[in-house]
């Protein structure tokens, strides 16, 4: 996040005090943050926009009962992560493609982009470095992707990532290492294996 919302003021506390200006500033500053968060997790553009709206709506509705117990960005990302989990459950309830070898496709019937990452050919065709990194992210497991997103992009401390994801701090370290190494393998080509879906690391 661009600003330290704890030191500048908690948007939800300000809302409780009847001042919507801070929340509006939060929306203006962090819409792109959450949009990128959901896009990097694998959401399509329109879906990512819906999820961003959902996050801000939930935050707004939480204002009445909100009690600050930690850093506000961590709270906001917890809401975002829950929204993503809900979305994943909805997708899981949809019919799935089953390949001839019996492996289940993680995408729904209507997804045009598989979640388990692009092939090297697809990466080469794309030719955009930024797009390559995001595509490479899709080769990570969801747990690794979340840890990488929160640690590398959102720069949350490990202890908050552990609390947010409800996993031990050691697991955060391990997942982060595997996520970064895997990305290097995919992006720099120093892996003897092709890009494939890794299971929870």
């Amino acid at each position, binding site marked *: 996040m661009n600003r330290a919302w704890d030191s500048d003021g908690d948007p939800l506390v300000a809302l409780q005090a009847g001042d919507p200006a801070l929340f*509006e500033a939060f929306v203006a500053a962090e*819409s792109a943050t959450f949009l990128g968060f959901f896009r990097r997790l694998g959401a399509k553009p329109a879906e990512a*926009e819906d999820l961003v709206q959902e996050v801000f709506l939930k935050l707004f509705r939480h204002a009445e009962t909100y009690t600050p117990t930690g850093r506000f960005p961590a709270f906001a990302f917890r809401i975002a992560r829950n929204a993503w989990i809900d979305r994943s459950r909805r997708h899981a309830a949809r019919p799935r493609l089953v390949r001839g070898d019996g492996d289940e496709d993680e995408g729904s019937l209507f997804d045009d982009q598989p979640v388990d990452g692009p092939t090297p050919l697809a990466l080469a065709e794309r030719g955009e470095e930024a797009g390559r990194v995001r595509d490479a992210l899709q080769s990570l497991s969801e747990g690794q992707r979340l840890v990488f997103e929160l640690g*590398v992009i959102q720069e949350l401390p490990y202890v908050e990532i552990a609390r947010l994801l409800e996993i031990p701090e050691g697991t955060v370290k391990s997942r982060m290492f595997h996520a970064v190494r895997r990305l290097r393998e995919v992006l720099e080509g120093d892996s003897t294996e092709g890009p494939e879906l890794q299971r929870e690391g």
Partner: protein
Amino acid sequence: MSTNPDETRRADEELLAWLLDEDTRGRTPRAELEAQGEQVAERLGDWDAFVQRCRVELAEDASADVAQTSGLEERILARTTREDVSWRGDWRLLRGFLGQRLGASVVLRVVAASLLVHIAALPVLAYYTYLAPEPETVIQFDLPVGEAELPFRDAEPEPQPEVDEIELSGLPLDDPAALPKADALYRERLAAGVESQDALSSALLAEALLDATEAGEGDREELAGALERLERAVRGSALTDEAPALRALLASAWLRASAAQALDADEILTASCERWLGQAEALRGARWYAAYLRAASEERAR
């Protein structure tokens, strides 16, 4: 660094933690970490460079996403701090809800489209109904009226058996083979019935004629009444085949009354009587004339 893969991995995890976790970084200065060896410093630099590269490239990617997004911030604010709570807000919420539901259900979209088509077709249907001629039927509302019950009942007259009904009873009409026999029986009964009616009519005529004949000797009013009764008896008679003779006799009664100056005879009636008198031969075969002669004879004898 160790050549043990597990140890190498743990070392890399710690390096990454130092790079990414501010708490870890706060506990160990970079110089202290790099002092562990040249290889550690090199790997730290590698990880650092890679992490920074990912951050930069993903930030550019996020900027491209944001550039493609239009009005996201406004939409969020419109549903949160700037939510319209007036009727326009209600309408917007309703519209949003309908849009959301329609977007989620194909069946609902089909139903909504069908509803719109029906609504659109309604004015057209009404127009053609307006153009069509009105039916001429008139709707009437009648109260159901039950059969009126009279407080008393008229005594119904005894049904008089008609000749044909009497004649048909007992005839073998069901057997086609016996139909000729039934026909003969019917004709026989019919003749008997006619004969009995003839006899009745003859008796009435004879009596009326006798009254008319004898009334002429009394006063004129009695003669006129007798002639009137005679006339009614003639009109009520079914003896059409004997009508000329009957009228002849009636004419003779008129003539006699005229000659006796009991009644002012009409010229036309007189002329008719003269013509009918020429047919007096017909009187001889008539049963009623025989009855008249018999009654007159008995009267004279008395």
